[in-house]
């Protein structure tokens, strides 16, 4: 290590000996997040409150899912640019199905369930195609998924014809915007169902604890974090990202594994799409300008992954997303325009990689 880095700015050996610095280098994203939370609590009005944290988390929920799926791909040494539009595509299809079934007189429960499942299943198709192109036909991931980016975008557009899809069963919104627990000073605790409050003062003082979508997301993330860190599948993912040849020689069915990984990424995007239906109560095609996939990649990298593969965790990715979300919300609460967040995200992204470049010893020193 020292051999190849002896021209870097720092003397790595010396830094490597300091435990404090080691901890800093390894957990800098987390520490940065904490510092930011403290800073914004002082600078922003009403930043530090349960409701605002709910807002932050709800705001980043799509990104959280997209980035976690992307993490698998990036760890395997690939990249998936199609996720943003796959999300839009699934969001549109799934809401069209819900709307049409509901209009055809099926029960809301059936319509919602069928719509969601169909969306999730359809979302697997782009993943299979991506994976097949990458693994079997050896198309570089950047290109294969960029092609899918255009195709998913076009299809979503075609299906929605540019209109938002409305007229979904009302329960969609109730599910998507509910919380696990409510606490009202007037009526006490209630679970899942919002207490009926009429006074504005009471509505404002209502405490809402843990949004339901976050419960789902956590559930999905925990499973996949487990898969990545504790199972053979996860182990192989790192192996492929580290060195494909070695993985092949070790008997891993690399093409099949890669297909699975792209399917996972696509599945996460589909989940995000279905979640979006529940949150927004309508199907919206992801806008051209929102660059979801790029922000997802940024989050994964801030979370400690490397685009060359073999590195990264779900936990780190979650921190990365939180960092972006908090920054966004904090700047908003401080009254800075949306454009500052682009600058801030850009800078943090570069800093993340620089830290990764110059503290390699620290980051790997367990």
């Amino acid at each position, binding site marked *: 290590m020292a051999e190849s880095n002896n021209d870097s700015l720092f003397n790595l050996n010396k830094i490597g000996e300091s435990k404090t610095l080691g901890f800093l280098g390894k957990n800098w994203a987390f520490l940065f997040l904490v510092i930011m939370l403290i800073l914004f609590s002082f600078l922003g009005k009403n930043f530090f409150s349960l409701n*605002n944290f709910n807002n932050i988390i709800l*705001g980043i929920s799509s990104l959280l899912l997209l980035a976690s799926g992307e993490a698998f791909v990036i760890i395997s040494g690939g990249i998936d640019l199609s996720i943003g539009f796959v999300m839009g595509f699934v969001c549109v299809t799934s809401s069209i199905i819900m709307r049409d079934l509901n209009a055809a007189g099926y029960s809301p429960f059936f319509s919602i369930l069928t719509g969601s499942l169909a969306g999730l299943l359809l979302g697997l198709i782009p993943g299979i195609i991506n994976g097949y192109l990458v693994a079997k036909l050896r198309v570089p991931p950047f290109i294969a998924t960029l092609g899918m980016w255009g195709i998913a975008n076009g299809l979503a557009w075609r299906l929605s014809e540019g209109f938002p899809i*409305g007229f979904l069963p009302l329960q969609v919104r109730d599910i998507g915007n509910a919380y696990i627990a409510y606490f009202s000073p007037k009526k006490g605790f209630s679970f899942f169902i919002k207490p009926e409050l009429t006074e*504005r003062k009471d509505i*404002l003082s209502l405490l809402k604890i843990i949004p339901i979508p976050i419960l789902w997301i956590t559930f999905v993330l925990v499973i996949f974090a487990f898969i990545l860190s504790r199972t053979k599948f996860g182990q192989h993912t790192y192996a492929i990202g580290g060195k494909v040849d070695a993985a092949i020689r070790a008997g891993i069915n690399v093409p099949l594994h890669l297909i699975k990984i792209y399917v996972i990424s696509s599945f996460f995007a589909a989940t995000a799409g279905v979640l979006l239906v529940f949150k927004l109560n*309508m199907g919206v095609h992801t806008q051209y300008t929102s660059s979801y996939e790029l922000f997802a990649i940024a989050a994964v990298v801030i979370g400690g992954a490397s685009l060359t593969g073999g590195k990264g965790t779900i936990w780190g990715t979650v921190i990365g997303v939180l960092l972006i979300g908090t920054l966004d919300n904090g700047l908003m609460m401080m009254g800075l325009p949306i454009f500052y967040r682009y600058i801030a995200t850009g800078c943090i992204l570069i800093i993340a990689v620089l830290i990764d470049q110059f503290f390699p010893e620290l980051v790997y020193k367990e």
Partner: protein
Amino acid sequence: MKKIVITILLICLVLSFVSMTCAAALKFAFMPGIADPFYFTMEKGAKAKAAELGVELIVGEYPKAWGPEYQVPILKALVARGDIDLLFTAPTSTEALIPVLKEIYDSGIPVITVDTYLGDGDYSKPSNYNFPLSYIGTDNFLGGQVVAGQLALLLGGKGKVFLENTNPDVSSVMDRELGFRAGLKIFPDMELVGVEYCLDVQETAVAQVSAALQKNPDLDGVFGVNVFSAQGAYQAVVSAGLEGGVKIATWDATETLIEALKRKELDLILAQMPGEMGSLCVEWGFKYLTEGAEIPRKVIPGFFVFTQENVNDPDSQKYIYK
């Protein structure tokens, strides 16, 4: 190499003759500003009128985002067909489109601007942008004022309001904002606490309005200036559990918003008359070309305000965008 060159030249020669065909019926072209329900409805209105008058209507591709760099190439490609008798379009920039449309006008195609305009929109005085036959469109500034007034009425003339806008780059929504600000000035107890731009991403609008509600717990009203910001605004209010507590005014009567109004989650929708605009363009254009009629330089079709009271009236239904 020589063979290739000769082949290509031959192909070119043949091709230039292929397209030399002419049609008898009048052909109008419509170039929308961006892909959204407003322009879709306009197209439908124009199509209906065109069918009635026996005019063929060619619609340019809907630009995927707002801006001359998206619109101009499509517009040029549309006009390059060469068989168009009249163009009506919503210019995406008051300045950038002047030379482009001038060139089209110079090549012999009369131009009508609809919904948005060139320069300051006044074609009656001499200027380098007074060549379009007419500007047909809503007075966005006036609309903004009306919304401000109606919102103040709903709130009893007192309260804090927030404006969720889309893109500071778009003249029509900025006019709405300016109108809204001007309208609020009439009510000394109304206060505008903030403006955010969601860049037409609904999720961003949700996040921004949520943050605004967080920052100003005593917020009384939100004005969402277009479909995405309005939908985002009411989503944020619903998710904060404040339906009914925070009044929401919106612009553009899409079915989705009307549905929300019927559910009493919204309070006010200002409907422009895109269908009417499209139909007017075709009608005036037809009259101009066939009868040589003089067209008014500015046609303002007005608008309609939906409230929870009148939304179910049979008379109101025609104002919904479909």
